[in-house]
């Protein structure tokens, strides 16, 4: 039922599919973490990828970013097959993990240089990028400080910007705002919006249901299966509730 309306909306919107996932499955031993999920993500949208802990969303995401091989099924990211062209996929995506993963013992500028470098940017490009980036983040005063000494919120904003250094088509954000104060979260989402306006596709997982409201479309994963996928507005209507939080609770309860 849900999927039929989705098919209709694709035709209506007629947008370019940037991620196509078909019956994607991941099995660890005799445990199946992701059970044949199928969905598409369109260019330039903010796609919310929701689910309770252990629902399989991180596993699914790892397959999309090419660091975990699918057991079966297919995923095309930016027109490339993740199973066979993972290195090319990686050229086209940015990734920011839930665990802060810049180097604490390098400075802001050094982190930018390093990650720019391994994405193949030239020294000149890196220099321009870092000036621009530090300015945008208003980090001029701390550009030569060790990243380890920055407050968490700043670190998160910095890692988001670093993930965008090589101007990827898609950015994957794995719970980017965990443990961050509400003001910084707000600012962070503003950065996401700005980026989405420039045409970058955002693929984001989150725990915060209010953040789900900011997304163009949201999928909810329960026990390795995508149980719902639509715009927040449609989902609320469909489940006859007022907030995404209630949608989520209803879905989780139905399963039990």
């Amino acid at each position: 039922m849900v999927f039929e309306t989705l098919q209709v909306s694709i035709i209506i919107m007629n947008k370019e599919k940037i991620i196509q996932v078909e019956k994607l499955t991941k099995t660890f031993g005799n445990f199946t973490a992701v059970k044949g999920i199928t969905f598409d993500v369109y260019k330039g949208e903010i796609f919310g990828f929701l689910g309770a802990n252990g629902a399989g969303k991180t596993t699914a995401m790892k397959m999309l970013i090419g660091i975990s091989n699918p057991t079966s099924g297919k995923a095309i990211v930016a027109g490339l097959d993740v199973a066979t062209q993972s290195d090319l996929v990686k050229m086209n995506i940015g990734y920011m993990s839930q665990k802060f993963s810049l180097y604490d013992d390098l400075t802001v500028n050094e982190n930018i240089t390093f990650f720019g470098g391994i994405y193949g940017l030239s020294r000149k490009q890196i220099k321009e990028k870092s000036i621009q980036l530090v300015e945008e983040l208003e980090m001029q005063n701390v550009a030569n400080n060790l990243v380890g000494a920055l407050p968490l919120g700043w670190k998160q904003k910095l890692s988001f910007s670093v993930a965008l250094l090589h101007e990827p088509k898609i950015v994957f954000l794995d719970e980017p705002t965990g443990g961050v104060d509400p003001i910084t979260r707000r600012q962070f989402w503003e950065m996401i919006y700005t980026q989405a306006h420039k045409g970058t596709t955002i693929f984001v997982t989150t725990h915060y249901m209010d953040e789900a409201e900011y997304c163009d479309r949201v999928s909810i994963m329960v026990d390795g299966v995508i149980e719902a996928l639509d715009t927040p507005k449609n989902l609320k209507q469909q489940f006859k509730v007022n907030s995404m939080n209630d949608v989520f609770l209803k879905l989780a309860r139905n399963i039990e």
Partner: protein
Amino acid sequence: MKIILFIIQKEFKQIFRNKSMLPIIFILPLLQLVILSNAASFEVKNIKFSYVDHDHSAASRELIRTFQSSDYFDIIAEFPSKKEANLQMQKGNVDVILEIPIHFERNLIKQNYTNLSVSINAIDGAAAGVSNVYITQIISSFNQSIKMRLQIYNQGNEVQPENILTIPSFWYNKNLNYKIFMVPGILVLIVTMLSLFLSSMNIVREKEMGTLEQINVTPIKKHQFIIGKLFPFWILGLVILTVGLIIAKVLFNVPILGNIFLIYLFTSIYLILILGIGLFISNHTETQQQAMFIAWFFTVIFILMSGLFTPIESMPSWAQKVTLLNPIRYFVEVIRMVMLKGAGFNDIKSQLVIIAIYAFAINGFAVWSYKKTN
């Protein structure tokens, strides 16, 4: 290539930034080289000697004087009884007890036969063996000189005993300076340990910190990443080797008879092997703690089975075969041959080939088993 440079730059920055690691990397090893090279001697000297003299004759006193004049023995005490002496040996205060029986002198002259009893603390078997040789030599030369005098006294109606004179001659190291032997060996250990520990901790550290995942989503190639990560340690190993060689030459006066570039050639390949082992350990562990344990296990085995401290020839043949897998063994052999004996390229060719094949195999295996995806 450009990408590799970025990684190398980053690694060097991280190494030099960690202020508490710098002295451990640069000072500790060289300090150990300077201090520990003095420790590794099997030379048995200052043997704690004691005696029980029941005879108190001119002959017994002369025998004790012979021991006194030897460099090997320190005369610690004279004990009134064997019982007291044994107790002191148990306490570890004496190593040797010489018991001179009553009528020692009289029997020697009149009966043509007398005996002596010697007790040696043999807890350290090897040292006891050497002490035993020294004691036998001293007593037999004492005996010889007594005989000579008595025979002259007896107007030589005796056949003079035949004697073989052994003339020791120590080649390559005339003064038996064990430091000349130990300094290159300990330098090898230090270069090996440093590069093995640092490289085996390196990648697993990023794994534990979560930064490895970030690297894995970049399009970087396996070999770029690995070369970039290991190259700084390769350089570091060569730097430590260089400083160590300077210390060996200047401070310990160790000769460098052969071509020093042979040592560098060998070390360059050897380090690739060691770093490959480190990489392999790093790949197959989840935490730095596990990595360290495995590195520790192999290091202890490599060190003790390298022939540096104990001779390989004395090992049972299966163990000698095991040492063929030990990279330190080859490095110790080569550095000794080149520095002390002036060996040339042809003399160390076989070791070089073995190490090169070994390095190639280990690294091939390590790179192959390194997974960006799972």
